[in-house]
């Protein structure tokens, strides 16, 4: 038999060495070819009496096997066909489970294995590198598992991170090897473990030098001609207790169910289903257990929500990071040295992420003390990392050595990129742009990190506007994953390409947005925060507002977020907007509330007198009691569902407007920007994905009814009304 993805060599002892090597890929993944080949091989292996056992390894130096090809899953492979019957969908989802089960039982009846009347042919895994998801699951289905003794090797089941569950026996074999608790930790958090930990937990049996994995695996196969998995032997018990009647298991599930609800707010069914697989699967024998697992897997895979998550959090995120928006014909930029102008909070953060990305940084400020203080920010982060063992002392020192604080513009003469993060004042920026362009190379791109000033306007100060672009970071720079790239009117291809190359270097997620006030994220967040404040002014209980946002899947409530960004800034923006639009804000309840907080109460924000919350020293923050006097709770409170809807649409509508106006060019960017920019509920896959899931028509109708109830700001953009009429979707009909 010939295989596309496998190499099979049978040695003189009759032991087959099966080497997985998926052609054209840097890393092995389960795709349709590998699944077909592996199934064929299992059948041939079990049928061939001359082959006594097998060792499975990988032909890739990059690792063993990295799981399922998510493009296959997200794009509508396994179980996706809406037209196929439930039975067909199940068979498709059960495919790997059935092959693995056949391999581990040797195709023998379980009763015969239990009685010792039959045995499986021994199969060992020789794991030379990372084994994740379906990559670890094939290892678990082997009777013996040998792993290279490299602590960097990741063994794990990360499916939960894209809204899935380990669907090839992972939820069943892990608890039978390592106990319910270890299995739950791995599967619900998705974090990998190293080989030593895996051995301690009983997940693998041998950890040996890398060049011995195959030999040791063969040795075991040779020594153990008649085998069965522990769970196919009589009297098998879960390590640490299992089943619905073991008090240890009962306590575990009661606790795990609460923790999972606390963490997920009922928004991530994958975590619940993983726990269900563990619970239900631990009561029944393996053959039933894997069927249950495949059914929960299919339930997830066929939900729009999971598809949205896979698409945004995995496929589109990777595409953006790999430079999908990058002009293709510009050669890759070499960014060895970056000049960062301004060593304030943003500049200091940018200096850190740039140095971390591997480039030299010239950190310039007017005052050397400030510049050094800016570098101090990196020193603090490195120090913390070293003390926590996250980074080695050497690596940390190297990183810090790459940052040079200075006040001298001449130090910028050999940089490959400039990122300007000075005070948000057009005159200050103008001065800096001119001084910098006087010394830097003629072809060096100048990027401005502004959040309020239009790039096209700033570029007028530049002699080379085609090399001028905006790169908008979020604060704190070292923590926030999104970067907005803003080409001005005259920005050329090279500026965009360089900006995207830079973002790739610092390992953040870029979206390209139009040059308008606030760009994308800052066009959406203020209306959302304002809506929450409007609710406060109306007498909606603040706890209900905050809990509704959390229930929606926002990482933090809008009132807490307002405290962070500060009431003071909110008031400043409100006044600036009023000035710009010429509207009188004095009658606006949000404006009134901000004035009251900032000017009457001195509650200007978290760092200045508190805000909607009190921040007791050393204690947990809590809602400010006085709020109920200023805005007495209304007798009639909205239901949780009503509050959630209002806060959701307060984000969906401005996001939709940004898309309709071309501020974000595509639904992908709108979704990525929302989730990674302001923490929009990741379970939705982003606002555009969510509108598709709701249905554009339903979205428009709901928005219109909210507009009737709460005001015109909820009216849907015309473009969406048109889409509703024509039946179009944001992601097209296939998505």
């Amino acid at each position, binding site marked *: 038999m010939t295989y596309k993805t496998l190499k099979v060599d049978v040695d003189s002892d009759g032991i087959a060495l099966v080497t997985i090597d998926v052609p054209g890929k840097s890393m092995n993944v389960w795709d349709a070819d590998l699944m077909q080949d592996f199934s064929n091989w299992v059948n041939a292996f079990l049928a061939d009496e001359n082959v006594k056992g097998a060792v499975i390894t990988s032909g890739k130096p990059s690792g063993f096997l990295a799981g399922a090809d998510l493009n296959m899953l997200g794009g509508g492979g396994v179980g996706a066909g809406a037209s196929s019957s439930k039975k067909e969908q199940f068979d498709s989802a059960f495919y790997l489970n059935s092959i693995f089960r056949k391999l581990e039982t040797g195709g023998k009846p379980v009763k015969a294995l239990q009685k010792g009347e039959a045995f499986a042919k021994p199969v060992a895994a020789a794991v030379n590198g990372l084994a994740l998801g379906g990559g670890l699951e094939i290892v678990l289905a082997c009777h013996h598992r040998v792993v290279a003794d490299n602590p960097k090797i990741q063994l794990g089941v990360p499916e939960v991170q894209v809204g899935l569950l380990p669907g090839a026996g992972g939820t069943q074999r892990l608890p039978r090897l390592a106990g319910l608790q270890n299995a739950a930790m791995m599967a619900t958090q998705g974090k990998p473990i190293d080989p030593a930990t895996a051995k301690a937990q009983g997940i693998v049996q041998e950890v040996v030098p890398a060049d011995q994995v195959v030999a040791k695996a063969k040795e075991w196969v040779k020594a153990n001609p008649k085998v069965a998995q522990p769970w196919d032997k009589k009297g098998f018990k879960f390590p640490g207790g299992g089943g*619905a*009647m073991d*008090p240890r*298991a*009962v306590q575990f*599930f*009661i*606790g*795990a*169910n*609460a*923790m*999972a*609800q*606390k*963490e997920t*707010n*009922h928004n991530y069914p994958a975590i*619940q*289903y993983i*726990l*269900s697989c563990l*619970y*239900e699967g631990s009561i029944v024998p393996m053959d039933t257990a894997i069927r249950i697992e495949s059914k929960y897997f299919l339930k997830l895979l066929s939900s729009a929500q999971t598809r949205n998550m896979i698409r945004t959090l995995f496929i589109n995120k990777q595409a953006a990071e790999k430079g999908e928006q990058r002009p293709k014909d510009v050669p890759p930029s070499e960014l060895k040295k970056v000049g960062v102008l301004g060593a304030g909070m943003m500049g200091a953060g940018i200096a850190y992420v740039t140095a971390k990305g591997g480039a030299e940084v010239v950190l310039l400020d007017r005052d050397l003390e400030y510049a050094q203080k800016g570098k101090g920010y990196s020193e603090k982060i490195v120090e913390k990392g070293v003390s926590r063992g996250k980074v080695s002392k050497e690596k940390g020192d190297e990183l810090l050595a790459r940052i040079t604080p200075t006040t001298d513009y001449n130090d910028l003469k050999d940089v490959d990129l400039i990122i300007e993060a000075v005070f948000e004042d057009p005159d200050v920026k103008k001065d800096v742009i001119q001084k910098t362009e006087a010394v830097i190379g003629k072809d060096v791109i100048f990027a401005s990190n502004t959040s309020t000033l239009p790039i096209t306007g700033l570029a007028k100060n530049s002699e080379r506007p085609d090399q001028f672009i905006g790169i908008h970071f979020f604060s704190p720079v070292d923590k926030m994953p999104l970067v907005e790239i803003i080409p001005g009117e005259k920005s050329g291809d090279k500026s965009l390409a360089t900006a995207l190359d830079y973002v790739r270097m610092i390992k953040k997620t870029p979206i390209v947005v139009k040059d308008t006030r606030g760009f994308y994220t800052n066009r959406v967040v203020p209306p959302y925060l304002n809506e929450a404040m409007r609710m406060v002014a109306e007498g909606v*209980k*603040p*706890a*209900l507002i*905050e*809990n*509704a946002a959390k*229930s929606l899947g926002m990482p933090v409530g809008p009132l807490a977020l307002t405290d962070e960004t500060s009431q003071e800034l909110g008031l400043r923006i409100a006044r600036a907007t009023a000035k710009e639009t010429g509207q009188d804000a004095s009658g606006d309840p949000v404006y009134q509330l901000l004035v009251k907080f900032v000017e009457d109460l001195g509650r200007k924000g978290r760092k200045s007198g508190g805000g909607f919350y009190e921040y007791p020293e050393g204690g947990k923050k*809590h*809602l400010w009691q006085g709020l109920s006097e200023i805005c007495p709770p209304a007798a009639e*409170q909205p239901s*949780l569902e009503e*509050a959630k809807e209002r806060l959701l649409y307060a984000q969906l509508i401005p996001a939709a407007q940004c898309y309709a106006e071309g501020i974000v060019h595509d639904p992908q960017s709108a979704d990525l920007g929302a989730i990674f920019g302001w923490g929009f509920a990741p379970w939705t896959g982003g606002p555009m994905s969510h509108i598709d899931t709701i249905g554009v028509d339903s979205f428009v109708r709901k928005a219109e009814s909210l507009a009737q109830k709460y005001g015109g700001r909820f009216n849907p953009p015309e473009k969406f009304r048109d889409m509703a009429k024509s039946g179009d979707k944001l992601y097209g009909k296939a998505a």
Partner: protein
Amino acid sequence: MTEAYIYDAVRTPRGKGKADGSLHEVTPVGLATQVLEAIRDRSEIDAGEIEDVAFGCVSPVGEQGAVVTRTAILNAGYPETTSGIQVNRFCASGLEAINIAAAKVKAGEADLTIGGGVESMSRVPMGSDGGAWPTDPTTAFKTYFVPQGISADLIATKYGLSRDDVDAYAVESQKRAAQSWKEKRFEKSIMPVKDVIGDVLLDHDETVRANTDMQSLGALNPSFAMLGEFPGFDAVALQKYAEFEKINHVHHAGNSSGIVDGAAAVLIGNEEIGKKLGIKPRARIRSMASIGSEPTIMLTGPEFAAAKALKRAGMDKKDIDLWELNEAFASVVLRFMQALDIDHSDINVNGGAIAMGHPLGATGAMIMGTMVDELERSGKETALITLCIGAGMGTATIIERVN
């Protein structure tokens, strides 16, 4: 429809539900046997007249398993013709067993029955029967399961009950229980428990602390704050009760019901059987009701069960002279009083489970007996007996004194 009458009621004293409790050496079947023997013997009736026995039991596994009622019937020397059923409605099992026994009489299925219950919490610990509700992720997620203590604290949070409120209630419960014992108010029903050589093991409720005061309770730490934090039941409760920022944890061992061992039985029959056997009815069952309510706050069911029982009896709350609500947690009773505007002097007049304990399957039958005795002692006419129940339910029964 045929009327159902209560002819007699007996109960064991309640022994501390731990290994050092006085009733720990007695098997649950033994406790159930002794109350069945007592109610037969003191009525001087032929047990063959008793057609069916329903006993509540909340952890019906191990030595409380396999229909503990039937085992006790046979063990008590009843004729083999008396059938038995074990009932589980969590904390209201004992009252539900009475309601089932009464319903059989009312429906004409039987002339003479027993309703009651048994729970040896020291021997078959709470939760021994497992159960899908909190454990199976599907049901735990769907119902936003939290333990009862969190629910009790949620009631306190939602209805503005302070730590002082619940502690003051507990102090009064202890005071009333001690006073009732002093005045021998339980004498008619109490049946001392004997050991295998026939010696008395316990003749009084073992957990009453007459000297409890605000200060001694104030020293106790809230019991459920830690569970609220980790694994995070507070967060689960607040996902449903989103108008609150946090849960005010006010309950502790001193203002919650005690864990105890005990059993109780109530003899129920129609009018004719009483005449035939020459026994006098003591109370008439006016109405019975069970309801379901919101399962996360869980313990607010009694107000709805009471309303339903009143409606079915064609009565108004003003028509009730005495109220008896099991003191699972102080907040449960305080909320009930608040909801129905009941004066503290009219409810749980002889103290309750905070002082004397809550033997889960038996409590409903025990407090029924307490009310029958108290109506006779005080000369009052009507009483409503109710209990809060796990997973959000309520059961209530209204009785009326006959003599």
